[in-house]
């Protein structure tokens, strides 16, 4: 959902540009970075591996 939210922010910013001056802050770039890192983390995570470890311990 993170990448959808980023596009939502982009749409909101462009809509506001008609009414006011928008200066993107550092947090916006941090948020974009968060999206990329989170997407990477989700694609690396393998729930099956967690179950395997739990079963090996039991």
């Amino acid at each position: 959902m993170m990448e959808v939210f980023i596009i939502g922010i982009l749409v909101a910013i462009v809509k506001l540009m008609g009414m006011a001056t928008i200066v993107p802050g550092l947090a916006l770039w941090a948020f974009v970075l968060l999206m990329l890192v989170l997407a990477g983390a989700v694609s690396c995570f393998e729930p099956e591996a967690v179950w395997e470890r739990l079963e090996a311990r039991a």
Partner: protein
Amino acid sequence: MSAAGATALAASCARCHDCGLLGRMPGPAVHGARCARCGGALHLRKPRSLERTWALVIAAAVCYVPANVLPVMSVTSFGQVDSDTIFSGVVYFLTHGMWPLALVVFVASIFVPVLKLAILTFLLISVQRGSNWRPAERTRLYRVTEAIGRWSMVDIFAITILVALVRLGNLASIDAGPGAVFFGAVVVITMLAAESFDPRLIWDRSEARRS
């Protein structure tokens, strides 16, 4: 046993939706079977999949009308109120020369919900009629609806941010309209509908014909 191998249904095995463990079902139509590893509910096919999906698809189609007719957001600036529907938002971007963004909003907010409803309706009808037509392609269509569903939330997120940011009292303020609630409902309900549809039903008919 067919050339493609036996199905889990024929072997009365079911894979747990929660942890992925393959479990053996005690009988063909059992309720209340539990996964041995995580305790999640086991079933050979999602229970009442067609009925549930139909109900959700119809509910989404009903909500789709007010979602597009009612204003999703109203902009008040210097006492003057402007209401925007989903479609007028697209037109706004087009008339201001921002066609890439117009395209993004059009695809996410208008094209994707219609496409999802159309694909789900087609899949439901084809499964109910026992169609044997291109099961692999129909499964791919289902995967597409599953993947694109959340992108419709773009407009809702944009409205959320605008409402939160523009709070300047009488000078300028943005409020969410009733259309936004219906639009959000359409997105959530179609996602639930895609979730409740069981793509294995597409294959059951061709398996039944083969054996």
